[in-house]
């Protein structure tokens, strides 16, 4: 093809695109009078029928939905607000609810949820308390519903533990460290514990801190404490003992998970949604792996805390049709749809799903998780400085795994100062 022909074709393409952009190819307006826009944090959160049932039930409401990554959603939401393209409902991290509420990006939907309770008592009654905790601020105002939430559990290879003569449950960090050390000593190819070293927020590490008796005061983790120092020391010891991979400082969540799923690591701290992938590789029924609550410190006097974090659907201040927002939230909360997401991805806060035979067949470990997850508390968060605090915690994680020889008390003191600065204390 000659260059002139190529440019001719390109020019024709440009003219056609211009025509399209001018509106010659614009679709006719829909017959529906009401419309609502939803942003999902992942494709996996979208119901299988893509709102077909909803449209059949409420033909006057048109639902548009997009996927905006949870990692980008705050910035995108603010830009969309500014441009008048904001969604009515947005899925975010629960830690960001209060900050967005303070900035009036999201709407106080307490009255809407009250109406939910009255109009749809059956669905409402199925929802666990975390549904509302994960979608509210510290004053108790509700902004939507956290229909999906997860926690981090100590996950391990039971067959490998048996090989090294350790019987689960492990319960305390010293036993975890001992098990990791022994597994790593079995042969050169096996890792005792698989860890994240970079790239993500510290939602893997903070739950362990809380489980080990760590305190969060006014949204600021108190790491310069006995619990904090032992928490730092736990990660350092895994590296010092050779239980974790030497490249851990550069490992992201994918590498950590793949090490366990690929049968190279004996343990990891991980959320239940990843068990779907583990199960594909090692069927749960074979008894090769299991999980338990995160460990405590040896001799810990504080109660073990199992914390979770949610991905709530929040009503934004751009919403002008509260009833439509309520109907969409109720629709997503129904067991039939919540179950689809729970089977393929994140667990739901709709308790009815936990007893569903199809769900239990797809996730055979689900029944074993219930006793651990029944008392989940929402991961504490700072109302306005959560991003800054999480940035410091990310830096702290790098410091823990990159400097296993450093004094943990020194690291704790240094980063407590940084955390306090980040919180404006």
């Amino acid at each position: 093809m000659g260059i002139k022909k190529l440019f001719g074709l390109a020019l024709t393409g440009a003219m056609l695109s211009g025509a399209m952009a001018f509106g010659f190819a614009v679709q006719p307006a829909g017959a529906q009078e009401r419309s609502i826009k939803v942003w999902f944090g992942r494709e996996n959160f979208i119901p299988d029928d893509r709102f077909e049932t909803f449209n059949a039930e409420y033909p006057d409401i048109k639902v548009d939905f997009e996927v905006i990554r949870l990692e980008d959603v705050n910035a995108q939401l603010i830009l969309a607000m500014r441009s008048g393209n904001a969604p009515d409902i947005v899925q975010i991290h629960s830690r960001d609810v209060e900050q967005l509420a303070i900035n009036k990006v999201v709407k106080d939907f307490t009255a809407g949820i009250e109406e939910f309770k009255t109009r749809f008592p059956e669905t409402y009654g199925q929802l666990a308390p975390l549904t509302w905790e994960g979608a509210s601020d510290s004053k108790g105002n509700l902004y939507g519903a956290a229909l999906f939430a997860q926690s981090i559990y100590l996950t391990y290879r039971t067959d490998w533990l048996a090989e090294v003569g350790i019987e689960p449950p492990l319960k305390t960090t010293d036993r975890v460290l001992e098990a990791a050390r022994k597994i790593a000593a079995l042969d050169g190819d096996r890792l005792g514990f698989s860890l994240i070293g970079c790239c993500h927020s510290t939602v893997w590490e903070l739950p362990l801190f809380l489980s080990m008796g760590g305190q969060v005061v006014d949204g600021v983790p108190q790491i310069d404490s006995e619990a904090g120092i032992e928490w730092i020391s736990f990660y350092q010891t895994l590296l010092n003992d050779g239980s974790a991979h030497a490249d851990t400082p550069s490992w992201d969540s994918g590498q950590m998970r793949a090490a366990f799923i690929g049968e190279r690591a004996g343990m990891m701290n991980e959320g239940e949604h990843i068990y779907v992938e583990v199960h594909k590789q090692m069927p749960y029924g074979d008894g090769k792996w299991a999980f338990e609550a995160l460990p405590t410190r040896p001799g810990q006097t504080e109660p073990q805390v199992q914390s979770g974090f949610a991905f709530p659907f929040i009503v934004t201040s751009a919403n002008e049709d509260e009833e439509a927002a309520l109907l969409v939230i109720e629709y997503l909360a129904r067991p039939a749809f919540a179950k689809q997401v729970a089977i393929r991805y994140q667990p739901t806060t709709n308790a009815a799903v936990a007893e569903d035979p199809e769900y239990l067949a797809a996730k055979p470990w689900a029944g074993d998780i219930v006793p651990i997850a029944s008392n989940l508390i929402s991961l504490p968060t700072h109302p306005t400085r959560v991003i800054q605090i999480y940035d410091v915690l990310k830096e702290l994680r790098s410091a823990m795994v990159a400097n296993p020889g450093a004094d943990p008390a020194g690291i704790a003191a240094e980063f407590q100062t940084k955390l306090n600065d980040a919180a404006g204390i």
Partner: protein
Amino acid sequence: MVSRAERAPHPMRESGMFTAGLRHRVGRFLLIGIPLAILVIWTTLPILWAVLSSLKESLEIYESNTLLPANPNLDGYRTVLAMRGFDSWLFNSFLVTVVATIVPLVLSIFAAYGFARYAFRFRHILLLLYLVPRIIPRVSLIVPLNSLMSDLGLINTYWVLFITYTASAIPLSTWILVGFFAAIPKEIEESATMDGANMWHRLRRVILPIAWPGVVTAAVLCIREAWNEFAFVLALINETSMRTLPYQLYMLKDSMGVQDYAVYNAFTVLTVLPLLVVYLLLERRVVESIVSGAVK
């Protein structure tokens, strides 16, 4: 008549020539061959890695450090091609690239001709100002651009991409073309003027054919810019159907699941492939034009 002794090269001289030739060849290999080989490996290895990784099984990339897939398969490509909306993203990328190449190129040809051929006040400062949008980090333009485009009601439209991509490509292509146009001797144009050619004819019949390698070079860079652009599309588009391929590639990154690098790399390869084809096609034209110009 030349004696045999006179005709035969002196053994010492022959040995010296051989040594010099060898030294020349070794020198050429060290100075050109090795850097060239490093450059080729440097540029092709990431592409090769992406292609081979796209043929691996989903967890294989984490488990093995070998370049070659253990059981090569096309599952990654099947997954990508079966993605809901892949055809839209491909079309969007193609559309904005075509527009953001043709429009800036046409405008830049006129602008560059003006800058190269006409002496007017503040010409150099104006040319320098052309570079300002490219000097400012793209990220810092996002908020004001988003604000401006929101006011114009252009968010989530093709127009917002046409305008921003075109505006971003014009300085680049203008600067390239100014250099090419300025290098053409004025006498050639003057001869054309003597033959009765007006400005339009001079530009079309004289300047452009001579500066064609420059035009193609500018076109290649405009295509590359538009096809790979990410920051603007991320900030100005949030509807799935309006996304371009680089945006969707970014969307595949999943920190909450196990990253399927086979799919990720298959998407990368499919994103790069059209650009690679166009680039190779036009690159050949550039070389041909340069060579033919040199012979003339």
